[in-house]
């Protein structure tokens, strides 16, 4: 047997479990194509709302359609990637409640990777595709003086954004060890955060904006770097260099989520049923 190390072990477990679910989905190809398409449409209707709004107004909070599309596209793609890879964590509360988490604990493989890949749903790629679609649309319409830094900042934003969202999902799942029924609270930070970040920060109460900078650092998912790309000042008196802090914030979020996850496992008591 080869040794893989903790991270390699997790990745390998994730790949095996996710691969199994993908093969099982692919048994019914037509059904999969249909669910992938509906997943794309469901999220696209979300954006239709913004289109309908811009049918009525020229700007929202001083931002044009192309600028809002950039915000929506970066947040949507980042959230889509996190949802594709970590979205199954939401189901963990049920597994803690009915005791089926014990099966996972008995296997000689990292628990987080097993739970995150549980019932891996490739159809969630529809959300990533929709985010990218709007992002490209926004980029085509945008009138920005591109510099190498701005060009480089864009993929960094999407990747770091996905990592921050994923860390929030792990943090939420860790809380499920204590409160199995509270999965919905995570939704307000993930789905809610995604909705929030799709709109310009100028339309929200400044205390709320400060909250997503300093308390739950969702502003680093896309707002702060995107505002730099758009040559707009950072909101709520945040320093301008914060636009480049996303990788650091993402790393800190991962650390916090990892600690919470360990504390959660240690406190886990099986239901015994």
């Amino acid at each position: 047997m080869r040794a893989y190390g903790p991270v390699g072990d997790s990745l390998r477990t994730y790949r095996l479990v996710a691969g199994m679910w993908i093969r099982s989905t692919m048994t019914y190809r037509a059904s999969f194509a249909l669910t992938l398409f509906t997943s794309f449409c469901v999220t696209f209707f979300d954006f239709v709302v913004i289109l309908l709004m811009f049918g009525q107004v020229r700007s929202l909070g001083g931002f044009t359609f192309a600028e809002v599309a950039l915000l929506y596209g970066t947040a949507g793609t980042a959230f889509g990637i996190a949802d594709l890879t970590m979205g199954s964590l939401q189901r963990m509360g049920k597994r803690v409640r009915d005791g089926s988490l014990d099966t996972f604990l008995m296997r000689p493989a990292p628990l987080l990777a097993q739970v995150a890949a549980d019932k891996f749903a490739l159809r969630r790629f529809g959300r990533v595709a929709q985010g990218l679609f709007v992002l490209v649309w926004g980029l085509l319409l945008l009138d920005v003086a591109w510099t190498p830094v701005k060009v480089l900042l864009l993929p960094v934003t999407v990747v770091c954004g996905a990592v921050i969202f994923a860390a929030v999902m792990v943090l939420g799942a860790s809380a499920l060890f204590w409160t199995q029924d509270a999965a919905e609270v995570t939704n307000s930070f993930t789905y809610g955060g995604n909705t929030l970040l799709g709109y310009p920060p100028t339309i929200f109460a400044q205390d709320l904006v400060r909250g997503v900078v300093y308390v739950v650092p969702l502003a680093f998912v896309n707002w702060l770097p995107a505002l730099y790309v758009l040559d707009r000042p950072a909101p709520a008196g945040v320093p301008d260099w914060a636009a480049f802090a996303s990788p650091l914030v993402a790393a800190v979020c991962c650390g916090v989520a990892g600690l919470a996850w360990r504390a959660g496992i240690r406190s886990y008591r099986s239901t015994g049923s």
Partner: protein
Amino acid sequence: MRLYATVAAGGFRRYATYRVATAAGVFTNTVFGFILSYTYIALWDERPRLGGYSMDDALAYVWIGQALITVCGMMGGGFEDELIERIRTGDIAVDLYRPADLQTWWFSANAGRSAYQLLGRGVAPMALGWLAFRFTLPSGPGGWLAFLVAVALGSTVSFAIWYLVAMSAFWLLDGQGVVQVAWLGGLFFSGMLLPLNVFPGALGEVARVLPWASLLQVPADVYLGKYEGWELAGAYAFQGAWAVVLFGAGRAAQAAATRKVVVQGG
């Protein structure tokens, strides 16, 4: 009759057991209420009186939507997953042997669930939203009563839609595709994302006559006092007509499915 009252009470109690889940739901609805409120404020700032609503009306609309999201099942009826699972595993055969009508049984259980959701997840977000935004309130107890009747009818239409969706599992076994399409319809055409009277042209006209308009748009307009006298009766009639049509379709699907199950079992 007493049987179904017991089933409804059971549905109420079953959801009342999950207090933490209710609290988590209230938190989520409140957060979304805040986010949507600010986007509506930005929109109505640019276009006052959009869709015939004042800013205060639009904000009320946001919080009515958050309060009714589980009551009128905009993003899922809350019972169809369980029913589809019973059809898929064959447990439904046991239900069909019971001396009770399948559709009425599930309707009663769902009515109990809906009533709990209104008290548990409806009242608190709306109260919190009102404290923060001071939106329009109905004129007096009569206005509240008219609103509650529209909510009850909306919940009934929602049940009829999701029951019909669940019945499709008899033929498709895996109901996921149909559930997703119904989910899409519910989210967009109920007016959950944006009021239907803001939808432009033909899209708006079509959206306002589809059954999903009964779930949020009609109750919200009743709340805001947009209907008076016979117009109010007309709004109720719109919801009632969709309830009758969809209930009938659900019953026909159930009858066809039952025949099929018997044939397979024999």
